């Protein structure tokens, strides 16, 4: 009986240690994940030079799409983004295009592709924005999905197909 109690105490000690260690790891990971996931409140300028902070779109499911006019996969993806904005905008999707380019070609493509969402423009600030949002390649297109509360939900490099885009935003719309 004494030996049984001794083992029971030992087991309880082990269990407590495991629970404590697990809780500590969980807390550590939660802290790290929270820091890593919250989007920085970056500021970009639109085609008229007006500044916009990302927090302007808090409360929406924000899809940031980094692109350039010399990037064919970007131009191929934009009509799908236009379609998604039209269809899911009323349910809380907000797409914002961020072009690493000059104003004139971006303006021309905005008209040509009928872009129905805001476009930001820049060069160094666009690349540093991509970097701040977790990009590792510095290539286009690069997209980031941000929850209404500012958490970064996902990132992807390369053009998305219509199905991939729908899968990406499906179930994350606020309305």
């Amino acid at each position, binding site marked *: 009986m004494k030996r*049984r109690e001794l083992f*029971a105490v030992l087991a309880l000690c082990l*269990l407590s240690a*495991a629970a404590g260690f697990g*809780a500590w790891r969980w807390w550590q990971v939660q802290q790290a994940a929270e820091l890593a*996931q919250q989007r920085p409140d970056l500021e970009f300028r639109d085609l008229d030079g007006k500044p916009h902070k990302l927090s302007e779109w808090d409360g929406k499911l924000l899809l940031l799409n980094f692109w350039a006019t010399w990037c064919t996969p970007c131009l191929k993806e934009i009509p799908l983004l236009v379609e998604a904005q039209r269809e899911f905008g009323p349910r809380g999707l907000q797409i914002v295009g961020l072009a690493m380019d000059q104003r004139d070609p971006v303006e021309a493509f905005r008209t040509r592709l009928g872009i129905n969402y805001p476009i930001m423009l820049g060069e160094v600030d666009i690349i540093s924005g991509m970097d701040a949002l977790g990009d590792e*390649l*510095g*290539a286009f297109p690069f997209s980031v999905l941000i929850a209404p509360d500012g958490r970064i939900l996902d990132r992807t490099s*390369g053009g998305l197909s219509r199905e991939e885009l729908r899968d990406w935003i499906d179930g994350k719309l606020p309305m």
Partner: protein
Amino acid sequence: MRGVIPSEARNLVRRSLVAALLGMTLPASAADGLLKKADGPQFLPVDQAFEIQPLEWREDGVLEVSWRIAKDYYLYRDRLRFTASAPASLKLGAPALPPSLPYEDEHFGQMQIYRDRLVVRVPFNKDAKGKVSVTVAYQGCADAGLCYPPQTRTLEAGR
């Protein structure tokens, strides 16, 4: 040993060990899922996609610039640029571009591209001596739907 340690205590120890292992692994795997990338192709960093080789001084008056291009990646012919950086007396002639492959681009029409390997011979003034440096600009994409911004590299060769 089986007769010494009671089975209840053995079970308790076993469960504690399982709990300890779960405590160590579960939080990490949960965090992995939070920042996952969308499923899709994995792309190479630009310098692995287009591996530029050291500048070669092939013979008097000819420099050779070459790239190893990864499978399923390509460089645009019309986005290649070669400019003399140093010395100030260095003058480059028209680069000898090898035959390229036609590529139908839905936005830019008929383009010319290079795959696998690209070697460009660039003539320069024969009186240039010592160390020369050339700035090379290039731009390319991946077939799976990604384009890298225009790249510039300054390469040196000496004799």
